[in-house]
């Protein structure tokens, strides 16, 4: 009996040792996107086959929840090997040195410069910190205006000619498209992409000559006149003004795909095309939708479209060196399929090769996004970008919903954002 027990313990210990030597698990957390899940599950299977002993565990969460999950995990030093979020949420991880710099050899590049050369200029700047590169872009996204042509025709408008080119036209067109039952909007013409104020609304202020933060990074909310005009515009848009929309209605982007005659236009990215196809193939095939550029104020001093933002795949710096290398190898493997990401998921990986390919150029309306992106800039990112965004949100909501004057809202906004800058 004693002998049997000894042999059993020996075999058990041996198997544990063997497993620990050859098994490597890479945890990969990302946001939900059914189209991307389909292709990345296949990449995982292919990578595991090519790298025996490596297991990739992919976990998805809602895009509204993943920031909290990743933050909580890293705070407990239990973060995943690989994750992605939008750069304004990711930057704090770079600034707090929680990430592993890119291992360009593991990723298959001959040098770090070769990595920069593979991407269009500027897109890797947000993830470059103290001379090291901390991420590779899963997608670079900007937003334009999606239009439901049927809604336009229903209101007696020609979508090809009457689509709004300025924000002033957006007000008038939206008003014509609205169907109201008293104060209640049963159909909105357009509504903003609340609560992404840094991406979709700060550029409106920049069109008028304002800035969120001064160029030297020291002063908050620059050019009161521009900010006041923007806040007055939003006040007019809301329930106490022309009543064209409100943050309390269902998000316009979520309604657009369903083609239920409850929204005429929304502000979203190229990925929406793939989602229209997935959610409502009949609407997609009908081609009763189109995409136009981000509007500009009539008296704009700058032609600034919606800011673009990037989701970057990043690697946890607290994992072992071996895990980090394998993680970068896997990230690079996934990102080597940029054409498939574009055709199946409608997300753009800003490599030189893809942006100059026929596949990209032949995507419907890719030129609209490309032209706007060329004029735009990356969304504001910093260690406290989430807090600054919430202050901008508070200012907009206070004028739209709480009856606060734009002047008072601006005063509060300046004080709060300046306090954030001063604390950094």
């Amino acid at each position, binding site marked *: 009996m004693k002998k049997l027990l000894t042999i059993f313990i020996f075999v058990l210990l041996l198997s544990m040792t063997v497993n620990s030597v050859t098994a490597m698990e890479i945890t990969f957390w990302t946001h939900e996107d059914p189209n991307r899940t389909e292709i990345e599950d296949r990449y995982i299977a292919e990578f595991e086959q090519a790298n025996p002993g490596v297991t990739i565990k992919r976990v998805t969460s809602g895009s509204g929840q993943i920031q909290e999950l990743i933050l*909580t995990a890293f705070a407990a030093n239990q973060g995943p090997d690989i994750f992605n979020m939008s750069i304004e949420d990711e930057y704090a991880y770079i600034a707090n040195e*929680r990430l592993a710099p890119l291992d360009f050899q593991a990723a298959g590049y001959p040098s770090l410069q070769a990595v920069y050369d593979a991407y269009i200029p500027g897109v890797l700047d947000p993830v470059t910190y103290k001379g090291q590169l901390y991420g590779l872009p899963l997608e670079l996204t900007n937003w334009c205006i999606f239009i439901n042509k049927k809604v336009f025709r229903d209101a007696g408008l020609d979508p090809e000619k009457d689509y709004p080119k300025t924000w002033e036209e957006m007000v008038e067109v939206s008003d014509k498209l609205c169907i109201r039952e*008293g104060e*209640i909007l049963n159909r909105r013409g357009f509504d903003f992409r609340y609560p992404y104020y840094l991406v979709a609304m700060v550029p409106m202020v920049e069109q008028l000559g304002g800035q969120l933060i001064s160029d030297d990074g020291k002063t908050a909310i620059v050019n009161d006149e521009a900010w006041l005009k923007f806040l007055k515009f939003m006040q007019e848009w809301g*329930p106490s003004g022309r009543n064209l929309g409100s943050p*309390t209605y269902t998000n316009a982007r979520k309604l657009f795909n369903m083609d239920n005659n409850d929204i005429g236009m929304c502000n979203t990215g190229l990925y929406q095309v793939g989602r229209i196809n997935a959610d409502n193939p009949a609407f997609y095939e009908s081609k009763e939708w189109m995409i136009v550029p981000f509007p500009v104020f009539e008296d704009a001093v700058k032609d600034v479209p919606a800011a673009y933002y990037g989701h970057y795949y990043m690697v946890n710096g607290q994992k072992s060196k071996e895990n980090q290398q394998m993680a970068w190898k896997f990230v690079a493997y996934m990102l080597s399929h940029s054409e498939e990401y574009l055709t199946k998921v409608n997300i753009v990986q800003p490599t030189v090769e893809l942006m100059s390919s026929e596949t990209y150029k032949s995507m419907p309306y890719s030129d609209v996004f490309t032209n706007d992106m060329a004029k735009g800039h990356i969304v504001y990112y910093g260690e406290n970008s989430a*807090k600054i965004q919430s202050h901008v*949100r508070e200012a907009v909501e*206070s004028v739209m919903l*709480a009856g606060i004057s734009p002047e008072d809202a601006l005063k509060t906004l300046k004080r709060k954002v300046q306090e954030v800058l001063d604390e950094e």
Partner: protein
Amino acid sequence: MSKRISSYSIERKKARWGWIFVTPTLIFFSLFSFYPIFNALYTSLFKKKLLSLKPPDFIGLDNYSYLLESPDFWNSMRATVVFTLGTFVPLLIFSLIFAVFIMSRKRFQNFFQIAYYSPAVLSSVVAAVIWLLIFDPRGLGNQWLNLMMNTPGIDHKWLAHSVMVQMSTMLVYFWKYVGYFTIIFIVGLASIPQSIYEAAKIDGANDWKNFWYITLPLLKPTTILVSIISMLQCLRTFSTQYLFTQGGAPLAPINVITLNIYHTAIRDHQIGRASAMSIILFVIMMLFTWVQFKTSRADEISY
């Protein structure tokens, strides 16, 4: 002498068994309640960022003095006090009324109990999502109210107006928890001996006199229990306000302390400051509980 020794050893035996049964709970509470409280108190004395790997800076009471001077914090206090008073008082009153109503029914008592209690079994998240749909401008909230008041097309701005959004959160909380406290009152009412009511009937007391002079005084321990639990729950409210703000409602009117703690920790990464706020909330809760115990003198009840 031997009698005293014998009774002492029986007491010790009883006490030993008592300790054996109580110890697992004590360990559980120490691990999951006392330790986090002391940890929060310790963390509140530091300037600590959630993602930083650097050792935090000891700043003493600076987090507390910042909060006491912060308009944002005082707005959260206002939002919490308004929510608590606006919810806890109706909860107390109506749960008692519903309990008396149910106990007075000869039939369908179980049905009413289930009907009132069922919202309490829903998770707060599910409840908030349901009410978000109701409070949508095109939702049932506007439709029902406009039908009842004959005001077609009026948007009552359930989530948009700063006063309405506060009332909406109170309404959701009340709907969710009134059944729970009704059941507690039902248990309290059932524990009052019927002989007292019979004696009162013989003396000529009517229903109102029974309620005012017998039921209410004898229900004091239950009333105190309900008032303390409901008040503490109201002070800790979070899910409804969080989900409403995620759904587009303005933050400032319903930025209760727990929501402010969450944003300070998770959005702003300021875990030291968030810990200080949670300690302040803890002190407030303990203070209110002590005041309620002191003013109620629950141990005076006897039949």
